Every structure is written in C-alpha cells, then in structure tokens.
C-alpha cells in the first residue's frame, strides 16, 4: 500500500504522483520505443493501428468523456483530417507542416460546426452529429475535383528531413511517428486536465448551472472542447490515411463513428487509460474472432455482421455490469491488490445520498 505524503502544492500539479508511477510510465515508453526490435512487422502494424485508434479515442474522449457531449460525427473529422493532410502534401507542403495544419483546420471546422450544435443536449446532439457522418460521404463525392470522389486517393510517401516513412516499406519508422504523435496528444490531454479549461469541461459535463454560477462560459467551453477534440481526431484521421495507404469516400463511414463511441465507452469514459484500453479491444477484436473461428473449425463460413454483433454484445455487457469500462475494472483490481488483505467487498458501492427528507423533525 502506497501512501502519498503531500509536501507542497507542486505535488498535485506534477504529471506523476510519485516515483513509482513515474517508473511505470517511463518503462512503458522505453518498451514502446524498443518495440520494432521485439516484434515482427505484422504485429508492429497491429500495434500501430491500436495507437492510431487510441489517438482518435483521445479526441472523442475529450468531448464525450470529459465534457459530456456525445458525438456520432467524428468519422467526418477523421475524413477531414485525412483528406486535408494529403491534399496539402499534394500541393507540395512538407509533412511536418501539412500534418499539424490538417489538425488545426479540422479543429477550426469542428469549432464552427459546434456553434449551432452546442445548443443541443444528449441524444439530440448525437442525432444531429450523425448527419455530419452521412454528409461527409456526399461532400467527398461532390468535391471530386479535389478529393477524387469514389476512386479515392493514395497516401504519398512521408518525408521528414530526408527520412522517408511509409507504412509497408518502413513499418518501424511509421510506428515511431505514430508513437510520437500519441505521446504528444496524451501529454496535451493531461495538461488540460490539470489546468482551468479541463476542469471547466468537467464542470460543464456534471452541472451546467453551477458551472455558470462559478463563472464558466458554457458555450465557449463546449466550443473549445469541440475544437480540441476535432483537432486530435483530425490528426488521427491523417495517420489512418497513411496506415490504410488508400482511401475514398467510404473509408470513414458512420460505422467508424459508432465504433469510436463504443470504443471509449468500453474503455472507460472520462479517462485517458480508457481510450487506450478501448483501442486495444477495437483493433484486436477482428483478429481474435478469426482466430477463435479457426479454432472451432468454422473458418470457411463467413458470418456477416459477426464482428459488429460481438462488439455490440461487449458494449451491452459493460453498460450492464461495469459502466466505468475497462479502466474502472482495472482501478478496482489495482486498489484490491494495494489494500490486500484489507479490501472489503462493498468498497466500491456508491454511497447513497439522501435529500433533505432524511431529516424527520
């Protein structure tokens, strides 16, 4: 059991609460950097995929988990990030400029779209954002001269100061690029959490009335959440484009939006860990399913919708039994071990709160 002694205000502000967690994350990063030497190219590709999904998950997590605004339109922002990055590069912009520019453009567009959307709450916002996902497809087809419509585009070679990066020929370099973006996005997310804007987002999520009374501008905070969320999603979209190699109007469909939302719910809403846990599930589920199908000898039969069905089942099970997602379960197991043997069974039960009727006289 670790006990935190707070010796200064700095303590709560630090990125890592103690030496132990610093060591854990440092080790994790060292392993992540060394991964290309530890794994073959196939698995490295899979891990790259997990990281890209995790970045997209971080983007949506900021909006849905942190600010409480559900969106089923994030596939549109993935598409915008992807198309703009590659179109910028086709104009001759170097990757190091085109990539952040694509993120900023997606963020700005997201903020502009948010201004009318933030008047909507909960399910209505979700429904309105579905329209975005559907529109994106049509817009890509309509803007054929720039987007090449249904025939689609190919991702060009990335060139950073003469170093060539491509998914198939140099999977290790592509992996390191994705890893760097992942770390930067995670860091930015963490920084927001420990500063006023991040707390204002949580305030908007939990109680708009009292957030207002504390001086939080609701619309501005939601717009900022949309902006940052879309920018991160745009970056993920660009990386998805490079990962896929080729893409067209159907690559970023509404299914991607739904998968992304389910992913962060399964991972655990409102936590950075949740985005990563969810990404692991999303990225490995197809592999896992085909392997189990091989095991039970049914590999020759194609079952349409199997993946989606299993995914939906997992989601329902989580909502019923572990609404905090994988991260919630993880925390419980960790605390159980830390407190061993003092953990009690009802420790995680919610305390009932009574309103004033509790008082009889």
């Amino acid at each position, binding site marked *: 059991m670790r006990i935190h002694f707070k010796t200064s*205000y*700095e303590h*709560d*502000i630090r990125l890592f609460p103690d030496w132990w967690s610093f060591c854990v994350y440092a080790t994790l990063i060292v392993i992540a950097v060394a991964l290309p030497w530890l794994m073959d190219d196939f698995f490295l590709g899979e891990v790259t995929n997990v990281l890209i999904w995790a970045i997209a998950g971080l983007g949506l997590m900021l909006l849905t988990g942190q600010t409480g605004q559900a969106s089923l339109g994030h596939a549109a922002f993935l598409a915008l990030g992807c198309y703009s990055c590659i179109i910028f590069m086709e104009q001759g912009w170097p990757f190091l400029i085109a990539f952040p520019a694509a993120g900023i453009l997606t963020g700005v567009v997201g903020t502009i779209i948010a201004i009318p959307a933030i008047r909507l709450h909960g399910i209505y916002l979700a429904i309105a954002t579905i329209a975005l996902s559907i529109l994106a497809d049509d817009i890509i087809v309509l803007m054929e001269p720039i987007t090449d419509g249904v025939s689609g585009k190919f991702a060009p070679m990335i060139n950073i100061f003469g170093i060539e990066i491509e998914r198939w020929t140099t999977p290790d370099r592509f992996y390191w690029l994705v890893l760097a973006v992942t770390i930067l996005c995670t860091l*930015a997310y963490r*920084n*927001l959490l*420990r*500063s*006023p*804007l*991040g*707390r*204002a987002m*949580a*305030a908007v*999520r*939990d*109680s708009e*009335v*009292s*957030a*207002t*009374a*504390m*001086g*939080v*501008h*609701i619309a501005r905070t939601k717009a*900022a959440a949309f902006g*940052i969320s879309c920018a991160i999603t745009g970056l993920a979209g660009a990386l998805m484009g490079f990962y896929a190699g080729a893409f067209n109007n159907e690559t970023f469909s509404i299914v991607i939006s739904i998968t992304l939302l389910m992913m962060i719910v399964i991972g655990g809403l*409102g936590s950075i860990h949740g985005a990563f846990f969810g990404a692991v599930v999303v990225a490995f589920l197809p592999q896992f399913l085909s392997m189990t199908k091989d095991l039970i000898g049914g590999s020759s039969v194609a079952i349409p919708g199997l993946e989606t069905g299993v995914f939906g089942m997992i989601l329902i099970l989580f909502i019923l039994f572990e609404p905090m997602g994988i991260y919630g379960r993880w925390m419980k197991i960790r605390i159980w071990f830390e407190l061993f043997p003092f953990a009690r069974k009802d420790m995680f039960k*919610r*305390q009932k*709160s*009574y*309103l*004033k009727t*509790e*008082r009889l006289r």
Partner: protein
Amino acid sequence: MSTLLEINNATLKFGGVVAVNDLTFSVEEGEVYAIVGPNGAGKSTVFNLISRFYNPYAGSITFDGHNLLDRNADSVADLGIARTFQNIELFDHATVLQNLLVGRHRHRKTNLVQEMLFTPKVRQEEKRHREAVEEVIDFLDLQPYRDKMIAGLPYGVRKVVELGRALASGPRLLLLDEPASGLSVEETQDMRWWIDDIRKQMGITVLMVEHDMGLVSGVSDRVLALADGAKLAEGTPQQVQSDPAVIEAYLGAGAA
C-alpha cells in the same frame, strides 16, 4: 457601512404564478442577511434572479454600483458573487479538490494553448489556485476528503464542499440557499460557526435562505420574511419572529 446589493421593485412571473412580487431590499456590506418564508415563497427565485438565471419582469438589481441586469449569468461570478444551491449542484464525477478548483475559475488568466502546453505561467497560476484552495480545505476541515470523488460522499460533506467551492472563488457576497437543510444538529452547529467566521474573519457579506430559525437568529443581523414573493416583514431576527403578519403566514401555511 455601504450598501452592497440592492434589489428594487423586482417582479418575476412563471406563467400565472407570481414568484417574486415587487420586492425591494438591500444588503449592507459585512452583514449576514437572512431570507425566511414558507415553501414556495420565492426565496430561491430571488437567488436565481441575482445569479441571472432568470430575467426579472420588472425592477432593477445592482451590486456595488454595477447593474447586474447588464450581465450574463456567467459573468456574475466575476464581480465576486458566489453561491450554493438548495439541492447541491456539485461536479459529481470529480474530486473534492477539483470541485474547489473550479471555484477559482473566475481568476483564470491563461488561455487554451498555454494550458495545453502547461507553460510556466500556467504552473505558477495553478500553484496560486491551490494555495487558495488549501486554505479553504483547512478552514472547513475537508482534508480527509480532498481526493475523494463527490459521488461517494455523504450528504453532509457535500454540503460543506459546496460551501467550500463558493469560498474558493474569493467572493465579496456569498449566497447560501438553505445551508443547514438536511444537516444533523452537530453539522448545523459547525455551519453556524463557519458562517460567523466567514463574516468576521474573511469579511464576506452573506445572504442566506434558511428555515432553521435557531440558525437564523444565531448568525444574522437582519431578516427578511417573504410570502408569495412579497415582503412581509424586515428587521432583526426578534422583530421578524414576533411580527403578527409572519406568525399568521407560517400558521396559515402550516394549517393548509
């Protein structure tokens, strides 16, 4: 002593219900001013008018020379007005510390980009906010709960956290909507000392709504009795309690 808050001829209707009816009163700097009245008298509605959640149908509200009606609800806090809610409006999925830190939001001096990069300026500001919040935690004895989620806290503690969040904003005027409702006798006693200290040590003016007459007469300088949105009586706690119109209103409400 100067007048801090002034409400003149304020009227507010919800459809056919006149929730606040041509109400005029003022709160002096440094006093504890209590509003009492039967259920549905319009006490919380007065608070919501000051917070600018509702627009008065007629009348004016001024705070320290500023016309409150010129402002939106989110810029009331900037003037140094903080409040609690009758039904506790905390940020349930955040810790006590984070809740109190939201109270500091009106002192935010950094922008989105600086915060994402966590520049030295942000770090320095964060330290300042945390110093202020730790003082509130010490004052209200919230140390054991600092890193606990609100969702798991007992009712009495939440009530204190909400007071803490309002105090953390460093207000000049504190609006407390039924600070003692639902509290045990001991907790109410604590609340009484705190309100006394808030006024005497911190020099914060307090405007509160409370049903517990023991608490009201214990801490307040002046009391306003409301019924059906209109002023029934105003004066010292003793004067108001012995006012025939007030006794009538309470007995009438009790008999109904």
